[in-house]
């Protein structure tokens, strides 16, 4: 551990602090009285660190600081210059849980889950420093965290199982790579703000069945050639996608970019990679694999096929996306996520049309407005219900077994 730099700040004046959070270096500029817990939650969007008592008693806010469990409510963020922090988000990822997380799940060691992040990091610290801890010592060793659901028995058996399985040392946290931490308060002008993107440049191919598939067809008045001219330029494609932006061309038709989506109270900010895997100028076909990660470790992957087909009147733009979701975005609900994606494609198609016709880089630079998107989604739902209702009126449903009667 390195000693922090000397600092002086008047009351209320922000203090610069650079620390590593779940493997990613972040620079913040905060008043000295902001605690680490508040910095993680309010400034970095890492809400897995919970707050109960805010004075060191309940253990909800326990995180790892330089490898040892500590109370995030009893530290001012400005004290942590140069420190290495691991929060529950860094411990594992939804598709690659840490053994402790697995064990908490399988032992039913979480009820409301409020204490779970604190228990996970407290027990991680325990097993990292005392892999040979005796089972009968666990109640005292884990007494620094309180569970208001009184799930202690199951918590102890979860930790005990992991201890037994890893006497030679607990596996390292699994999600401490490069992340995009949102809401970065940029330091003073000139100071480093967002972390430099580092790490993986490789796109992983999605595995298994997609979470949902979206297919949209839109008739455009622009000619297939003009439409293709838009599709052939990745910056134009991104510009047509609401909330999306290409930040770097990596070569070999690979790109780094980011996207922001907000729906109601949900705000997701993805950073990721895109790779064009098929670019067929003859057939006007473009296939892109995109992969993005949000701050909560949620991951989205999508295989998107765009085809501009000739029709008598212009172009039929067909977009097919197979979308793979993990993490908190998956909880979004497939239907809603699918609806939102569909709306995004409709907006995309409209923007492609406009760009193709006008030849000017156009529209959709802002993230889709929360209200507009939701309203559109709800309106679409209402239309669908309306249709179903009308259909139902015309063809009253037959009793499943009615025909037998």
């Amino acid at each position, binding site marked *: 551990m390195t000693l922090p730099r000397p600092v002086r700040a008047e009351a209320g004046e922000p203090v610069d602090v650079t620390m590593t959070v779940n493997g990613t270096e972040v620079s913040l500029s905060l008043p000295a009285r902001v*605690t680490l817990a508040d910095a993680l939650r309010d400034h970095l969007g890492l809400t897995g660190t919970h707050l109960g008592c805010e004075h060191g008693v309940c253990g909800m806010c326990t995180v790892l600081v330089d490898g040892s469990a500590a109370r995030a409510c009893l530290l001012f963020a400005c*004290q942590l210059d140069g420190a290495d922090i691991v929060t529950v988000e860094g411990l594992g990822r939804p598709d690659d849980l840490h053994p402790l997380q697995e064990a908490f799940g399988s032992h039913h060691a979480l009820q409301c889950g409020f204490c779970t992040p604190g228990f996970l990091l407290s027990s991680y*610290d325990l097993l990292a420093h005392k892999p040979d801890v005796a089972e009968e010592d666990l109640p005292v060793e884990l007494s620094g965290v309180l569970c208001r659901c009184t799930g202690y028995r199951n918590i102890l058996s979860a930790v005990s199982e992991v201890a037994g399985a890893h006497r030679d040392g607990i596996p390292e946290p699994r999600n401490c790579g490069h992340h995009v931490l949102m809401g970065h308060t940029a330091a003073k002008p000139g100071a480093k703000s967002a972390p430099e993107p580092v790490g993986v440049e490789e796109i992983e191919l999605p595995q298994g069945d997609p979470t949902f598939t979206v297919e949209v067809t839109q008739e455009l008045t622009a000619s297939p050639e003009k439409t293709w001219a838009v599709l052939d330029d990745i910056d134009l494609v991104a510009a047509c996608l609401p909330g999306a932006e290409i930040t770097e061309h990596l070569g070999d038709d690979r790109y780094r970019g980011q996207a922001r989506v907000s729906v109601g109270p949900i705000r997701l900010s993805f950073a990721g990679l895109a790779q064009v895997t098929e670019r067929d100028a003859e057939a006007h076909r473009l296939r892109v694999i995109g992969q993005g990660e949000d701050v909560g470790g949620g991951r989205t992957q999508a295989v998107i096929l765009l085809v501009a087909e000739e029709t008598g009147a212009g172009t039929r733009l067909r977009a097919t996306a197979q979308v793979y979701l993990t993490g908190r975005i998956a909880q979004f609900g497939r239907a809603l996520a699918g609806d939102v994606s569909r709306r995004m494609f409709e907006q995309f198609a409209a923007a492609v049309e406009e760009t193709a016709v006008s030849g000017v880089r156009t529209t959709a630079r802002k993230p889709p407005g929360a209200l507009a998107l939701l309203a559109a989604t709800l309106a679409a739902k209402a239309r669908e219900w309306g249709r179903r209702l009308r259909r139902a009126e015309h063809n009253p449903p037959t009793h499943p077994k009615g025909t037998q009667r």
Partner: protein
Amino acid sequence: MKAAPFAYVRPATLDDAVAELVRSAGEGKVLAGGQSLVPILAMRLARPSTVVDIAALSELDFVRRDGDELVIGALVRQRTLEGHPLAAAVPLLRLALPWIGHRELRSRGTVCGSIAHADPAAELPAVACCLGASLEIAGPHGRRTVTAAEFFHGAMATSVGAEDVLAAVRFPVARPGEGFGFAEIARRHGDFALAGVATRFRADDGEAAFTAFGVSDRPVTRDVTGLGDDEVADLARDLVDTAGDTHGSREYRQRLVAALAVRELARARRAAEGGTA
């Protein structure tokens, strides 16, 4: 539960830290591990104008053996000392440290911070008194050393003035044939003690002493060389100087401290005679 605004300084040298405290004219507070100070600030029980974080004072980041003393600088955390090879020379520290709060608090809390904070129920002030440790204080008029017996003035009151920094604590190392005991009773593990006792015993001359904590406004030490168990128990009972509270009556604390003193003196004696601490 948020601290009021304060000026924050993290000086690079001990002299600068003292200068900052002088500048803030009695309104400054030293921040070490923050495990006691931050809750006090969060509850706005204190509103210092300036918080002087000593985290960058590299000159105070040491644990070293100096003759027959173990010297611990103000940056040393409780958990660091718990696992430090040199700490074995002061067995009473090894016995007492695990009783401080929880692992998560000891990760950040410092040894000197606990002594400077001087909570009457805290473990390390009692250890300092039981061993006759000395405290190195840096102030505007230079450095001075104070014995533990003089250092604690009352609950959270010590020889560390508003413009001083407790720079280091010096614990005498155990001699061969010395044994120690330590125990406390709290409502649950990690809480401050309702009553606690640190003891030492020397096999060659039979010198025995115990320090009671949590029963008065500061740790109290009694020489009990040559006394029998009943006399020790009576002495211990007499030290209880706190009234009853919701956690335990005065009589309950008297029984606790008497029982602990007798038991932990026996432990110290066994350790001394068995040659282990």
